[in-house]
């Protein structure tokens, strides 16, 4: 059971390993805070749609499952979008159309299809929570790196020294691609090292 949860954090991390859900990942991570909010919104949709889909999985005919899953996901996304608009208007404005775009985030439909439609509610919950938290962590890491180099702050707190020149490129689209590419490389390197150590033991 616990494996269902942990695998999303590292071994099958949706961003670094599966390279899924790229559009929100790259688009909103100009600041760590935006990454965190996007991650939380995705986590909410992932968990609630995963549980609903798993609960109704026996009543859904195979041929029309994808449209049904999509409608369920879109419903929760609408809820998340209105929640953000009502309570965190500034963040909602900054994230713009990328909140509704959670509907077509491949991670969510992917987990619905690959896991929730085949397993019970409890396991689907753990799987979705693991994937969602793994996604959120990846977004926070990416957002922190880009914010640190792009504006010299992390979560809005000044980290860099006073004379630091901001790397404008990091908050531009090109910086997003390059940072994520390098982070994927670092992730693979660390992963390999862990594997080696595990083998030696």
């Amino acid at each position: 059971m616990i494996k269902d949860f942990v695998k999303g954090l590292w071994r099958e991390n949706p961003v670094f390993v599966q390279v899924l859900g790229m559009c929100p990942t790259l688009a909103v991570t100009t600041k760590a805070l935006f990454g965190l909010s996007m991650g939380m919104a995705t986590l909410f949709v992932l968990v609630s749609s995963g549980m609903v889909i798993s609960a109704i999985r026996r009543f859904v005919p195979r041929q029309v499952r994808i449209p049904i899953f999509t409608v369920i996901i879109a419903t929760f996304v609408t809820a998340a979008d209105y929640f953000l608009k009502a309570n965190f208007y500034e963040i909602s404005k900054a994230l713009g159309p990328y909140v509704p775009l959670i509907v077509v985030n491949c991670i969510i439909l992917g987990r619905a299809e690959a896991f929730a439609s085949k397993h019970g509610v409890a396991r689907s919950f753990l799987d979705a929570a693991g994937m969602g938290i793994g996604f959120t962590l990846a977004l926070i890491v990416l957002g922190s790196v880009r914010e640190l180099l792009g504006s010299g702050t992390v979560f809005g707190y000044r980290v860099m020294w006073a004379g630091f020149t901001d790397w404008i490129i990091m908050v531009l689209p090109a910086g997003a691609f390059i940072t994520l590419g390098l982070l994927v490389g670092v992730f693979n390197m660390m992963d390999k090292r862990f594997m080696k150590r595990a083998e030696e033991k």
Partner: protein
Amino acid sequence: MNTFEELILIFIAASITNNFVLTYFLGICPFIGVSNSIDSSIGLGAATTFVMTIAATVTWIIYHYLLAPYNLVFLQYVVFIIVIASLVQFVEMVIRKISPPLYRALGIYLPLITTNCAILGLTLFMVLRNYTFLESVVFGLGAGVGFTLALVIMAGIREELAFCDIPEPLKGSGITLIIAGMLALAFMGFGGIISG
């Protein structure tokens, strides 16, 4: 009424200066997954352009004549995604009936398009920016052309990449993302063509 000039500006903005893939990060999944050969990229690009143009047309009509007048805007995400999914199905059926050669060429790519975030993104941007009917159609077409352009360039680079000596941890998605970053830099250079 729009002048012809404005429509051309929207087209250029959607296809080059504000390229969907390289500045809005829409449609990255096929961009990274499918862009292995030039031929399949052209196929997917053509199919996507086709669906994008029709999707922009249909969702504009639905939004302005159905959702907005009856105060149903909160349903727009659900409605849009259903429209796009059924549109893809429909287009697939029509092409199979009318032009079997075209169907054979595009066939396998069509179902992939439903989950392409570029299409839903396109319809959302269209609503957000309050485009008129004609502007939306041109916007859809431009976005599709831009998507194809990015996909084909990427495929061309990746075909060469097969012969290169890439550091082990960067192989696969890592190097693809870094190249995409460089492409985004290159496309930034077009920014001066139009302002805003």
